[in-house]
């Protein structure tokens, strides 16, 4: 099922299989993520971890700024850190199913003989983490607005820009997750940590918590080569536009220009990720890695 031709892609069967794969794997992903405990405990579990991550940064800031949250840098830091939670949840969400199904449940080989589309299946499996990530981002931002006076004015938000940016960014992240899933297929060890490791790297290079111009000049191009950098900049411009003026990293770019760059990233990644995943999958099949259990 994974070697689909263009004709197949346009057929009714394709859509039907897509719908079925996505729906079933989303349901499966949600059950795996959530049914190990009762719903209340799951909700608490889902928000404590990201809130603690945000709180570490708030306390660090507060220790030095002596509780003065009314600065442009705090808003920059808070929103960047809050939305960055998506990077980990989307990318790891999509790629983790490979580790889970191959190492833990030992069902990956059965997925390959089932009439499903593997990339769609992986996307569905990741949806639970994406939904939980959305809840975490929402609660983190709400907490910032209610308790830390993060400068957010509902009426001044550019909702259209936010919606378009948000969707494009998620598309880019999903496709990066698919690339990671392909890489994970070929890894014997440390595959558990690939998503987190890549997310950690991006935390540093994408201007999530400090402007990328603060990085050494030699490292800045890494930030400019990542879609998340533009995504976070546009999210900030849409939600807290006036604050971003204090950080002139992209001052020479209009919203439309940045949106164009992000769209290009999303498009290119959509094409490239599928090809990379297919290439990795092909190699994994040839080398017999689909059902490899390492217990590492």
């Amino acid at each position, binding site marked *: 099922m994974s070697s689909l031709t263009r004709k197949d892609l346009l057929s009714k069967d394709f859509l039907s299989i897509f719908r079925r794969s996505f729906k079933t794997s989303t349901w499966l992903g949600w059950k795996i993520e959530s049914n190990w405990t009762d719903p209340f405990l799951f909700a608490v579990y889902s928000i*404590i*971890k990201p809130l*603690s991550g945000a709180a570490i940064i708030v306390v660090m800031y507060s220790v030095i*700024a002596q509780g003065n949250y009314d600065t442009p*840098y705090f808003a920059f830091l808070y929103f960047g850190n809050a939305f960055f939670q998506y990077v980990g949840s989307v990318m790891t969400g999509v790629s983790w199913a490979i580790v889970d199904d191959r190492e833990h449940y030992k069902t990956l080989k059965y997925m390959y003989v089932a009439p499903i589309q593997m990339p769609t299946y992986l996307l569905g499996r990741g949806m639970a983490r994406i939904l939980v990530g959305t809840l975490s981002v929402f609660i983190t931002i709400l907490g910032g607005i209610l308790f830390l006076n993060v400068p957010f004015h509902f009426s001044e938000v550019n909702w259209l820009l936010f919606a378009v940016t948000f969707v494009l960014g998620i598309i880019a992240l999903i496709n990066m997750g698919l690339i990671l899933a392909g890489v994970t297929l070929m890894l014997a060890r440390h595959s558990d940590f690939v998503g987190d490791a890549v997310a950690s790297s991006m935390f540093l290079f994408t201007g999530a918590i400090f402007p990328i111009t603060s990085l050494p000049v030699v490292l800045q191009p890494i930030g400019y080569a990542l879609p998340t950098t533009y995504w976070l900049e546009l999210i900030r411009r849409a939600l807290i536009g006036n604050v971003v003026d204090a950080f002139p990293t992209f001052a020479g770019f209009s919203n439309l220009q940045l949106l164009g760059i992000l769209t290009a990233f999303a498009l290119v990644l959509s094409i490239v990720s599928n090809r990379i995943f297919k290439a990795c999958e092909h190699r994994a099949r040839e080398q017999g890695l689909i059902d490899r259990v390492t217990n590492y």
Partner: protein
Amino acid sequence: MQTMIGRASPRLIGLYREKSWLIFDVFFPMLTVIGYVMIYKAIGAPEDYVGFVVVGGAMTAFWMNILWSMSSQLYWEKETGNLPLYIASPAPMMGILLGMALGGMVGTFIRATGVILIGSLLFNVTYTIQNGFLLGIIFILSMISLYGLGMMTASLFLLFGREAWHLANLAQEPVFLVSGFYFPLKFLPFWVSAAASIIPLTLGLDGMRQLVFASGATLGFLDPKLEAIILAVLSVFFIVGAKLLLDHTEKLAIREGRITENRR
């Protein structure tokens, strides 16, 4: 002793055989450390705070080792089918836990040293060691009590099913927060810090920072000598607790048939 060395050896040999840990356990944690250092630099924090982050970042390696290679270990052994073999063998389970702790401690010490060395060189961290003897005592007591805690929770995790993974996952960021891994503990409310002191790294890290940084003493939570005494008490408590709990949970797990179950 034979069991302990036997169980510790795979962890030590693994350090040489599988060198990819250098990337995953030193390089990637360094990125988080660099990120936090950059925040402090962006807000103009005093230089010692950079050192606090480097030392805190290095100590996260020990906490991660406790969570994923001590607490969850018997659970993983159960999942992979090794646990019944351990129990069927004449080796005492306490020896196996001690071996896990010893191997993990040595391996993690090398990783943490790597993070400290790279971080210190990268950010030019200045250390002003005020009492080397007390520093050594606090570090050793922190490790004994921390791995004692790991041994105790390992037996608890033996009773868990799928929730084991989630519980270990949950005990990362919240612990980094309440234990003051990236900022001085003193800035948290007193009772939060006091409650967090049950985790040995909380007081261990606070004591070590007080003894290696010039401004450490002014930012300390308790007197380092008092912290050493509390850590000594915690060490005894956790190791005795681990022995009692292991005996109890092993019996319970055998009686309820949980040794061979796989509830993933």
